């Protein structure tokens, strides 16, 4: 056991792992470095580098047996309890967040890429889902569509088409009886979307082409369009994903009142080295002051004033508010952009939910991520090259 963990330690060091194992009693096999195509780095050791390269290539196609996965799960659970003990917490109520916290504490990593840091997760999340062996001892496959090559996909399409036929038959029966009615309840599809190709692949544990995916979508749409599709609602919803409403994530500060009883709210914004802060008062004059100077004198160019106007015009509140702005840094366009963001944020608290959503969709609340690109060595500027001379 000790020898094994020593070899494990060496493999970690060789494959460039940052941390060092401190406590050899704790089985470190559950601590992996998570990568995209999950190679298993904790392996039986190869000593020569040539053989090591070959072994790394082989790991990407290796199939993990079910038994192996089961063993990994057991070891994970035991390891979790050990970790809870080490951290002095209750093993029964030790959640994944606690695990993450503990690992980050025990193995501090200075790497920038989060996915390269040490991680301890349930094996189901780490190992890719693989199909179990699909044929029996006699070599005969279990599934009747095995020889199509994409058995799950064709199975799914077969099932969906079966449901389509069933619903059409049901509709015919209702029409024959005279009980057909147009106003049957329909499935609400607002606020959700179909699964993406990657998500579907993950679900079926099978690779498919774009062509296949579009066929799938067409068939699902056809199923949805049938009059009695509410019967199959559960089935359809299993292939739909709910979209979150973005603006519900926003934290909106409440409206403040100063000593004279005038409502005001503040907002801050940044754009490309310019920072701005704005106080919007509910006075009703439409006066705008920037750094103590009238905005007409400060922003001589029309475009900058249009930028200031945009949030107010969008909400139809052009002459109703008094703005007191402070802005530093950047150029004139950056200052105007920063002020616009600050004004939009300040107006959030004076406005209803639907208008907030509208503002978000109009792009008023998104900070502009564009900054100056760095200059690279060998180039005159970020992209401009030096003059190319043929000789």
């Amino acid at each position, binding site marked *: 056991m000790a020898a094994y963990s020593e070899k494990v330690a060496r493999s970690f060091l060789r494959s460039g792992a940052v941390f060092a194992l401190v406590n050899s009693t704790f089985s470190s096999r559950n601590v992996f470095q998570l990568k995209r195509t999950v190679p298993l780095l904790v392996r039986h050791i190869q000593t020569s580098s040539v053989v090591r390269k070959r072994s790394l290539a082989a790991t990407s196609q290796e199939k993990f047996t079910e038994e192996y996965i089961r063993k990994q799960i057991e070891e994970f659970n035991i390891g979790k309890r050990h970790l809870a003990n080490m951290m002095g917490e209750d093993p029964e109520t030790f959640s994944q967040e606690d695990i993450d916290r503990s690992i980050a504490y025990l193995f501090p990593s200075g790497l920038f890429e989060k996915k390269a840091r040490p991680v301890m997760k349930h094996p189901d999340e780490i190992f890719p889902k693989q199909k179990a062996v699909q044929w029996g001892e006699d070599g005969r496959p279990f599934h009747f569509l095995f020889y199509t090559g994409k058995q799950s996909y064709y199975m799914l399409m077969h099932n969906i088409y079966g449901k389509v036929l069933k619903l059409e038959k049901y509709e015919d029966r209702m029409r024959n009886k005279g009980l057909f009615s147009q106003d049957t309840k329909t499935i609400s599809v607002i606020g959700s979307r179909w699964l993406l190709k990657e998500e579907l692949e993950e679900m079926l544990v099978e690779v498919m082409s774009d062509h296949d995916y579009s066929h799938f979508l067409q068939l699902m749409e056809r199923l949805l369009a049938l009059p009695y599709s509410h019967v199959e609602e559960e089935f359809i919803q299993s292939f739909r994903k709910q979209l979150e409403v973005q603006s519900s994530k926003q934290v909106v500060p409440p409206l403040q009142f100063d000593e004279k009883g005038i409502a005001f709210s503040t907002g801050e914004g940044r754009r490309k080295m310019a920072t701005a802060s704005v106080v919007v008062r509910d006075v009703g004059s439409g006066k705008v002051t920037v750094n103590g100077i009238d905005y007409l004198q400060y922003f001589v160019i029309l475009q900058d004033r249009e930028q200031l106007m945009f949030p107010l015009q969008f909400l*139809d509140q052009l002459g109703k508010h008094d703005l007191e702005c402070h802005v530093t840094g950047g150029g004139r366009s950056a200052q105007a952009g920063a002020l616009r963001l600050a004004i939009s944020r300040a107006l959030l608290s004076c406005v209803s939910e639907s208008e907030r959503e509208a503002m978000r969709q109009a792009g008023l609340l998104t900070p502009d991520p564009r900054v100056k690109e760095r200059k690279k060595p060998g180039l005159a500027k970020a992209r401009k090259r030096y003059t190319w001379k043929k000789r």
Partner: protein
Amino acid sequence: MIMALYRLTGRLCRAVSQTRSLGTAAVEAEPPASGTRAIFRTVQQDPAHHSEQDLGQYYTLPPDHVCSVFPHGLPRHFQLQMKTFNETCVMVREPALELISHLKKADYSKPALRYLLYGVTGTGKTMTLCHALHYCSTQGWVVVHIPDAHLWVKNCKELIPSSYNSSRLDQPILASQWLKNFGITNKHFLSKIKTTKTYMWTKRESTEEGQPLGELLEKGLTRIKSSSDVMGALLRELRLQCSKPQDEGSGAFRLVVAVDGVNALWGRTTLRRENKNKVEPEELTVVQNLRKMLKNDWCGGAIITSLSQSGSLFTPRLAYLPHELLGKEGFDSLDPFIPVPVPGYSEKEFESCYQYYIDRKWLQHSQSHTEEGKKELIFLSNRNPAVFEKLCAAL
């Protein structure tokens, strides 16, 4: 109350015009019947009778007045607007009315009062000046109008040493141009006023005493070299004769000296001599003469001046107050004066201007006729006349 009246009459007018256009269904455009006068125009065309009721409304200047009173006086963009709209319409505003009322009530046996118009760039100081000048010329005063003093201290190609005083410099072309314009403005006074002393221009040329001013002007226009001195002499004559009590021959007249961009006289110049030395404003003859005019040691007239940052040299862009633009020297020499602030458009004035542009079909964009468009315009221009005009030029 006046505002309420204005709004009422506005609504009535618009209602009347709307019903009329509904009645004549075939006609698309608003029928320009004589009964529906546009709300932004005033009946009163004489500046002497303009009163508070006409505030915010436009009055039209007849073309011959324009040619005679303002041969060089109006600002450039206003001249373009005149040409486009085929009429000269000036808005009646607070500062102008205040100025005119002062002019009416002033005592002309005392030394001349100085008025200084100041305000942020583009609020209408020059137009107010022109309005006041129109009033003065309709009252029969002698008008000495310098449209822009900044033109005298920059971009001058020819500078010749003065014959009168060797340390000073002359600007012959500028002076002769000004004399010509002065002649056009004050044509009827040229024969009435006579010179009081003999002037020697060169060894051979001289003007005798008792000659009408027209002769003096002719001399200045023909002999360009001495035109600056002629200008100085002219101004001196006017000053002396204006102060004198009523004479038998020459009737008493009132003199108004109007200078736009007066801060140029005390600022710095961009002119240089041939030996690349800088020229101070004191070294220019025309500037010296003008400064003498601006001193309030003469009576029987008024001095109206306005500051201007846009044409000025070496002044910060955001400066607009008198002591910032004039400097200590200028302020002391102009002190005491009556300051007249010129603000941007008020709501009523803005409305009036907006209606005028719509009436003249200057605002072509479909959205500029809507309420939201109007609010946009108000925000973008912040009710500054010049900015509003530039904005509408693109629509």
